[in-house]
């Protein structure tokens, strides 16, 4: 990749830094690593959803003295997975709150003996009545968490909602549901831990946030900062599923390593990973909207409730994002948004790409089509009349300063998808065909970075250092797990320093080597961490210039010479930059009001579907994804993020159903949890607009999660267009279509048989 005087590495598709290793099988994931003397670890888990442990028995036919056994009593520090509320135990001591809750840990050198030993531990429980649905939890007749089963609530108020109803020409109500979704990274969760009294604990793992694990291990193991080391290995997919969970599995391996003084590897198989680890929060949203005669939203009430599972973990933050996105990209003169995260006796739900926004935006975008129908105008027109415009405020009263034109974005998406012509054509064709076709749209936004004062709280620190040979190394805790972290951050540094891309490398995230640049979540890496990398890289240049070693224009050879001289004279050449909140940005955490995000990306997605009335199945035939994302830093990677996110969201909408029984996932195999194959997905056509962003590196906005928000409602809107039936719940399975088309109206939730979703 040649480097011109002006740079221009950013904006090109530079080779993936770790790409060659990945295509040759040389990339090292956790299970590829073996340490001398290593043991394997496994977890004995609860078979009941709620209760008290009465007795633990160890089958005497097993030679237990060969095994390392760890229970809650062995925990040197606090028995919790430190995150936000610290209510989740690392190992259950007396009380069980969900199926598959970890109770004790075993380790042995022989994997097979280990597995048999897990089966040889029997546990007796005194069971307690469990809560398995949102309704049961809200009813609060059985309290399973805190005083009222409620992890968190938010209230957002704007304008004067109580006064809008009397002037409303229409009052439109709706109730919308989304189910749990499994992240289904193709590499299961896994870690290796080692311990020695001198260095403390080291954990190598498949993970997104080395410093989250670091913090959790300090608390669990009772060790100081410099006696815990966390290293991220090549990670085979994450999507949020390895944001907080690695603290749990890492904690387990660390405890076994501490007790045995041997390295311990814990790698889940697919069945264990699916049944025991986090999933997307199921949700229920209720809308009640006052609309004027000509289709303008006057105001409304939105109630958004998510099922957090048995412990708080990240539910408050998921709720936060879902709350802030609940109003979509529309202007609400008045609104009241009431949201809650509730407890149920199921393994805690957790982070998954989108993080609350796909749930509340599904509801908003379905509801917009409903409003259109009531008002008597098209789904296109209703949105045009309500889009946020520059100068207006969002539901949290954040003023939109950027020059976004959603009207034009929508027009462009309609043109790219041939929407009008197709709709007209289908209306005719559908009269005589058993395969009905329809078009649906979704218009939405996604805020990048941590909410409000979150980035200030994270206080990210980034480093860039230069070596004597002129190679520059980026030092961040931001993890690569396919999205292109390594590549993009090196591009940014190379461009800032006007060096060839090949002269920039990035350190493996190791908490003894890299500073804490924050977790790799919330679509913040390119935008926020990237900007810090840019500053830090620039800092290297300035240091050399100030030392009189580098002029304003320089060649890579001159840079190398300057580095060599500097290091010889002064020692290490390193530049560190800490995040600074942009001035004039105000967020009120009490009233949940103000500048929620430094930047929003905006999108219009269009789905073309076929509904086959012979099999009641829906297929997506074509998909257009148009988004305004500030700046495309790397065309191939950016496109890859969108197509990958759209594919996952198509799964969310039509294929991926978690079958629950007594709080436990029973279809925990890839045979029975259905994600789309290459034979199922449509051509996904991706288009970008780039309006810049003052807060992001090179004007970039975050895009990792954006594509998760739009496809599901666009698809369900398209299904309604095709067959005239309104669906309010995803996943939308053929059995649901059949039921709606051929049987009685949906029955009340309490009488749903076991094999249907639990979100209701």
């Amino acid at each position: 990749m040649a480097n011109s005087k002006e740079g221009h590495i950013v904006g090109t598709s530079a080779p993936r830094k770790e790409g060659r290793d990945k295509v040759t099988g040389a990339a090292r994931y956790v299970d590829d690593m073996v340490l001398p003397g290593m043991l394997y670890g496994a977890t004995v888990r609860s078979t009941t959803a709620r209760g008290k442990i009465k007795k633990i028995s160890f089958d005497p036919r097993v030679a237990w003295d060969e095994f390392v056994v760890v229970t809650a009593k062995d925990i040197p520090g606090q028995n919790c997975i430190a995150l936000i509320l610290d209510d989740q135990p690392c190992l259950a001591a007396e009380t069980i709150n969900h199926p598959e809750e970890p109770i004790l840990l075993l380790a042995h050198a022989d994997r097979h003996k280990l597995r048999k030993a897990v089966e040889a531990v029997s546990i007796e429980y005194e069971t307690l009545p469990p809560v398995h649905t949102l309704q049961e939890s809200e009813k609060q007749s059985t309290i399973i968490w805190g005083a009222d089963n409620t992890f968190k609530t938010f209230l957002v108020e704007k304008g004067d909602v109580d006064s809008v109803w009397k002037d409303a020409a229409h009052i439109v109500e709706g109730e919308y549901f989304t189910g749990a979704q499994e992240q289904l990274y193709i590499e299961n969760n896994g870690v290796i831990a080692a311990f020695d009294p001198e260095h403390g604990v080291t954990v190598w793992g498949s993970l997104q946030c080395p410093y989250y694990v670091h913090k959790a291990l300090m608390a669990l193991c009772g060790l100081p900062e410099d006696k815990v080391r966390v290293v991220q290995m090549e990670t085979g997919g994450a999507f949020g599923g390895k944001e907080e969970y690695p603290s749990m599995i890492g904690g387990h391996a660390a405890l076994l390593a501490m007790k045995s003084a041997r390295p311990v590897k814990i790698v889940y198989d697919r069945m264990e990973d699916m049944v025991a680890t986090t999933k997307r929060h199921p949700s229920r949203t209720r809308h009640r909207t006052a609309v004027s005669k000509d289709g303008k939203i006057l105001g409304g009430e939105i109630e958004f409730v998510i099922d957090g599972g048995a412990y708080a973990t990240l539910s408050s933050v998921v709720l936060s994002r879902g709350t802030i996105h609940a109003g979509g990209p529309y202007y609400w003169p008045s609104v009241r948004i009431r949201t809650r995260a509730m407890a149920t006796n199921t393994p805690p739900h957790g982070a998954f790409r989108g993080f609350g926004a796909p749930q509340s935006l599904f509801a908003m975008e379905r509801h917009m089509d409903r409003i259109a129908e009531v008002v008597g105008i098209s789904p296109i027109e209703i949105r045009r009349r309500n889009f946020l415009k520059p100068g207006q405020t969002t539901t949290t009263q954040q003023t939109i300063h950027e020059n976004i034109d959603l009207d034009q974005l929508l027009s462009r998406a309609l043109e790219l998808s041939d929407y009008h012509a197709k709709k007209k054509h289908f209306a005719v064709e559908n009269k005589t065909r058993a395969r009905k076709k329809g078009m649906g749209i979704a218009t939405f936004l996604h805020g990048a970075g941590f909410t409000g004062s979150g980035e200030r709280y994270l206080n990210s620190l980034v480093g860039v250092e230069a070596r004597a040979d002129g190679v520059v190394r980026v030092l961040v805790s931001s993890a690569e797990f396919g999205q292109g972290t390594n590549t993009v951050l090196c591009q940014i540094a190379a461009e800032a320093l006007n060096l060839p891309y090949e002269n920039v490398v990035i350190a493996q995230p190791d908490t003894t080597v890299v500073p804490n640049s924050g977790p790799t979540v919330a679509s913040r890496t390119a935008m926020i961490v990237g900007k810090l990398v840019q500053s830090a890289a620039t800092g290297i240049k300035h240091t050399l210039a100030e030392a009189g070693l580098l002029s304003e224009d320089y060649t890579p050879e001159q840079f190398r010479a300057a580095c060599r001289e500097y290091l010889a004279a002064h020692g290490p050449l390193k530049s560190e930059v800490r995040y600074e909140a942009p001035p004039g940005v105000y967020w009120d955490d009490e009233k949940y009001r103000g500048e929620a995000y430094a930047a929003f990306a905006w999108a219009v997605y269009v789905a073309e579907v076929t509904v086959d009335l012979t099999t009641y199945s829906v297929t997506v035939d074509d998909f257009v994804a148009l988004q305004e994302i500030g700046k495309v830093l790397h065309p191939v990677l950016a496109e890859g993020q969108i197509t990958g996110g759209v594919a996952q969201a198509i799964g969310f909408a039509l294929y991926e159903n978690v079958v629950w029984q007594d709080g436990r996932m029973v279809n925990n195999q890839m045979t029975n949890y259905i994600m789309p194959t290459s034979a199922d997905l449509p051509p996904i056509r991706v288009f970008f607009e780039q309006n810049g962003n003052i807060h992001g590196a090179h004007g970039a906005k975050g895009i990792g999660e954006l594509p998760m928000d739009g496809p599901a409602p666009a698809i369900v809107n398209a299904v309604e267009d095709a067959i005239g039936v309104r669906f309010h719940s995803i996943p939308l399975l053929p059995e649901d279509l059949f039921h709606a088309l051929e049987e009685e109206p949906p029955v009340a939730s309490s009488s749903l048989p076991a094999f249907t979703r639990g979100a209701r």
Partner: protein
Amino acid sequence: MNSSGDAKTKCDVSFTVNGEVKRLRVHPMERLLDVLRNELGLTGTKEGCGEGECGSCSVLLDGLLVNSCLIPVTQADGSNVVTIEGIAAHSLLHPLQKAFLECGGAQCGICTPGMILAAVHLLEKKPEPTQAEIREGLAGNLCRCTGYMQIFEAVTKAAQQRVVR
């Protein structure tokens, strides 16, 4: 390697892996996947599901694409196995590997070895595949990151290059 039990229930197996003959003493019901990874240190082949659904464990066995998690090692006795480590010709990447790099076919990389084997197999059987044939040829390899589009591009690109050659 960590299987317990009697040495006398093991048996002798020999097969060629990436051109080299390997002779092993293993339990006959060891999965070929585990033998490749643990006995032979060829960790490029991955386990994603253990049920023959995800294709991460795909290898070529006597020229046929198979899921190595479903093959008892004795059934590979006398066979010719090719894993991802055997696809590049020393440091020269196979056209498919190059195309995956250029088109963004690999993101997290965990499905990539199996996906490349499946693509190699496809192009050997169908040097000029249609889009539908590409989709079918790769339908047994799940990718959670890419949404497949850039993988199809990579296979199409590699096919065109081979045709040109």
